[in-house]
C-alpha cells in the first residue's frame, strides 16, 4: 500500500509538472469535443442547386422559387450553360441541376405530362440520395396540388400515409447523436495513449529497471501508474457532461450514477489496452505506432462514426470484441434514451468481461524482470 501510494504521488507530480501533458489530458479533449460536435453534421441542407429555366414563365419561376424556399436546395446565382448541364456537376459548382423544359406551363394547362430532367451528383451517396428523393418528392407534391386545384377526376381516391414520430432527438440534430460518441473516442485516445507512452518512457529511461530492483509488487506499481489517468478520464467525462449540456443542449435522461459507473468500466478497458501496448513496445515510438494500429480499427468498427447495421454481415460480429461499441451504447443510452441498468446490462457485461481480460493479460505480460 505504501509503495502504491508512492507511485501514485510520483505520477501526479510528473503530470502536474508537465504542462503540455496536462494540456493534452484536460484541455485538448474538450476542444476536440467542441470542434467535433460542431463539425460532424449529417444534416443535409444547402445543396448547391442550379435551375435551368428554359420555360421562363411566371409558373416556372414560381416552381424554382418554391423548390429553393426552405434552404435545403440553395440556388447558385451564376450564368449557366444549359446546353451542357453535366459540366456544372463535373466542376463541382452545383450538386444538382434541374432542367425545366420549354412549354412546361403550356403543357400543365393542357394537362399534358412534362418530363423534368434532374441531374444529381452521386459522389456522396448520402447527399445524392437525399437530393434525388427531395426533388422527386417536391414535384410529386406539386402534382398533387395541381391535381387538387384542377379537380382532376382520375386522382387517387385514398392514401395510406406515414405518420412519423422521432424519439429522443425529435429535430434529429447530429450533435446530439455525435457528442456522446465523440466522448467515447476522446477518452480512448487520451487514456490509452497516455498510459502506453508513460510506461514506454520509463522503459526507455531505465527508471523501470530501477523500480524493478525494489520489492514493489507488479500490481501495486501498475495500479499506481494507471490510476491518475483513470482519474483524469473521470474529470474529462465530467467536463464532457457539462459541455454537452451547456453548448450542445444534449439531454441527460438517464442516471448519472450509471454514466460514471459505465465510464469506470470503460477506463478499465482503455488503460488495459494502453498497458498491453506498452508490454509489446520497447520505445515510445513503438508504443505510439502500435497504439495507432489498435486505435484506428477500434474507432472505425465501433458504430460511433457509422452505423453498425450498415456494415457487412461478416463485420458486424467483430464489433462485439470492441469495448468502444459497448461504451457507445451505454453513453448514448444513458444520455439520450434514459436507458436503465436492466436495458444496458449486456453492454455492461461485455465491457466488464473485456476490461478484466485485457487488464489481466497486460498485467501478466508486464514482467518486472526484462528476461
Amino acid at each position, binding site marked *: 500500500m505504501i509503495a502504491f501510494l508512492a507511485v501514485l504521488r510520483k505520477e501526479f507530480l510528473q503530470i502536474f509538472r508537465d504542462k503540455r501533458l496536462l494540456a493534452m489530458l484536460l484541455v*485538448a479533449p474538450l476542444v476536440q469535443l467542441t470542434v467535433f460536435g460542431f463539425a460532424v453534421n449529417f444534416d443535409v441542407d*444547402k445543396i448547391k442547386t442550379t435551375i435551368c429555366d428554359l420555360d421562363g414563365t411566371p409558373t416556372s419561376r414560381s416552381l424554382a422559387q418554391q423548390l429553393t424556399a426552405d434552404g435545403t436546395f440553395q440556388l447558385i446565382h451564376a450564368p449557366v450553360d444549359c446546353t451542357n448541364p453535366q459540366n456544372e456537376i463535373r466542376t463541382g459548382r452545383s450538386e444538382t441541376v434541374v432542367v425545366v423544359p420549354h412549354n412546361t406551363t403550356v403543357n400543365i394547362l393542357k394537362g399534358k405530362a412534362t418530363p423534368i430532367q434532374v441531374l444529381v451528383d452521386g459522389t456522396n451517396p448520402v447527399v445524392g*440520395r*437525399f437530393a*434525388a428523393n427531395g426533388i422527386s418528392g417536391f414535384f410529386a407534391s406539386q402534382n398533387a396540388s395541381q391535381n387538387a386545384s384542377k379537380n382532376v377526376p382520375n386522382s387517387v381516391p385514398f392514401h395510406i400515409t406515414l405518420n412519423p414520430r422521432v*424519439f429522443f432527438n425529435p429535430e434529429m440534430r447530429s450533435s446530439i447523436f455525435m457528442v456522446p460518441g465523440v466522448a467515447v473516442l476522446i477518452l480512448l*485516445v487520451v487514456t490509452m495513449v497516455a498510459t502506453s507512452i508513460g510506461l514506454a518512457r520509463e522503459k526507455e529511461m531505465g527508471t523501470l529497471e530501477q523500480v524493478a530492483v525494489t520489492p514493489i509488487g507488479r500490481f501495486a506499481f501498475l495500479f499506481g501508474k494507471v490510476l491518475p489517468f483513470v482519474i483524469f478520464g473521470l474529470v474529462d467525462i465530467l467536463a464532457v457532461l457539462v459541455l454537452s449540456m451547456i453548448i450542445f443542449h444534449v439531454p441527460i435522461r438517464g442516471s448519472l450514477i450509471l454514466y460514471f459507473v459505465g465510464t469506470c468500466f470503460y477506463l478499465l478497458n482503455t488503460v488495459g489496452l494502453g498497458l498491453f501496448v506498452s508490454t509489446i513496445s520497447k520505445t515510445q515510438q513503438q508504443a505510439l505506432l502500435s497504439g495507432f*494500429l489498435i486505435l484506428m480499427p477500434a474507432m472505425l468498427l465501433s458504430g460511433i462514426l457509422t452505423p453498425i447495421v*450498415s456494415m457487412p454481415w461478416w463485420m458486424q460480429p467483430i464489433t462485439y470484441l470492441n469495448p468502444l461499441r459497448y461504451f457507445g451504447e451505454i453513453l448514448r443510452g444513458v444520455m439520450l434514451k434514459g*436507458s436503465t441498468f436492466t436495458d444496458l446490462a449486456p453492454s455492461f457485461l461485455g465491457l466488464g468481461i473485456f476490461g478484466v481480460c485485457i487488464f489481466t493479460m497486460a498485467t501478466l505480460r508486464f514482467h518486472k524482470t526484462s528476461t
Partner: protein
Amino acid sequence: MNLENFSPSVRRTLAISEKETFHILRDLRALAVSFVLPIVLLVLFGYGVSFDLDKAPLAIVDLDNTPASHNLVRNLTANQEFLVEDWLKDPNDVVTSFRRSRTLGALVIPRHFSANIEKGKSTDIQLLVDGSSGTVAGSLLGSLAAFVQSESENIAYKKTLQKSRPLLKTEVTLQYNPALQSAIFFVPGLVAFVLAIVAVLLTSLTVAKEWERGNMEQLFATPVTRLEVVLGKLLPYLAIGCLQALLVLAVGMGVFDVPMVGNPLLLAFATLLFMIGMLGHGLFLSVVTRNQMLATLGAAFTTILPTILLSGFLYPISNMPRILQVLSLIFPARYFMTILRAILLKGSTFQDLWPHFIGLAAFSIIVIAGARARFVRRIA
C-alpha cells in the same frame, strides 16, 4: 549507386536519404504501419464505413393482425433493407426496445387498417424512430416514407384500377455513382486520409527522435546545409508515400470498383504535391517540438482529426458552421480530397480544379519554408 558523379550538395542529400532509408527498412513496425495499415484501413473503411440501410432492425406492432397487415410487413422485408427484430403487442414497449438498442424504428399498424382499405378510407401508419441513432434515423424516415407511398399507390391501384397520372415527371440521373455506393465515395477520401496520417506521423516521429538522441547535433558538425537535411529526410518518405498511394488506389479500384475517369497523370501530380506538403508538415512539427511524444500528439491533432472532420471526408464541409469552413481552408487534405474525387469519379480537368491545386502548392511551400527556417543550427 555511384555518387561521385553528382555535385557535393546532391551527394550529401543522397547520403542523408540513404541513412534514412536504412532506418526505415530496419524498423519493421514503421514499415508495417506504412504498408499494412493503409490496406487494413482501406478494407475496413471500404466495407465498414457506410450509411446505407441494410437489414435495419425494426419492431412491428401489428394491432390489426389481418392478411392485409401481414402482407404489408412481408413487402417491407422483401428487399432485405429492413429486418423485423421484435414483434410487440403494445406500442408502449417500443421505447424499451429502443433503450436496449434492439431496434432503430417501429411501425405501428393501426386497428381497422384492413377495414379502412376495404372501405376506401385513408389510414395512418405510425412510425416511431430512435432519433439517437443519427444518420440511420434520417435514412429510415426517408426510405419508409417511400415504401409506404408505393404501398399506398399499389393498394389504391388494385382497389380502383386507377393510377394517378403525374403532370410533372421527374427523371433523375445520378451521375458518377449511379448505385450510390458508399465505397465509391469513401475510397478516394481514404487515399488522402491514409497518406496524410502515415506521412506526418512517420516523419514527425523519426526526426524528433534524432533531436532527442542528439544525432542532429552530430549532423550539424558536418558541412551539410539545412535544405540538404530537409530534402534528404523527405526523399525516402516521399518514395514510400507514392508507393502507398499506388497501393491504396490499386486496391480501391480492384476491390471496390472505384473508376478512374480522369487523367492519371494529373492525379499523380496532385498526389506528389500533397505528399510534399504532408511530409513538410511532419518535419515542421518535429523541428518545432523536438520531442517524439509532442510531435506525435501534434500530428494527431493537426492531421488526423482535421482530415477526418474538416476535409469533407465523411461530412460535407458546406454543413459546418462558417468558422469551421474557413478553418478547413488551411488544411491541404480538403483540397486533395476534392481533387481526388473529382479526377477519379468525374473526370475533372486542371481547368476545373486549379484553385485546389494552388491551395495544395501554397501549403507545401509554406511548411517547407517554415521547417527550414526553424531548423536553426543551434541546439537549444
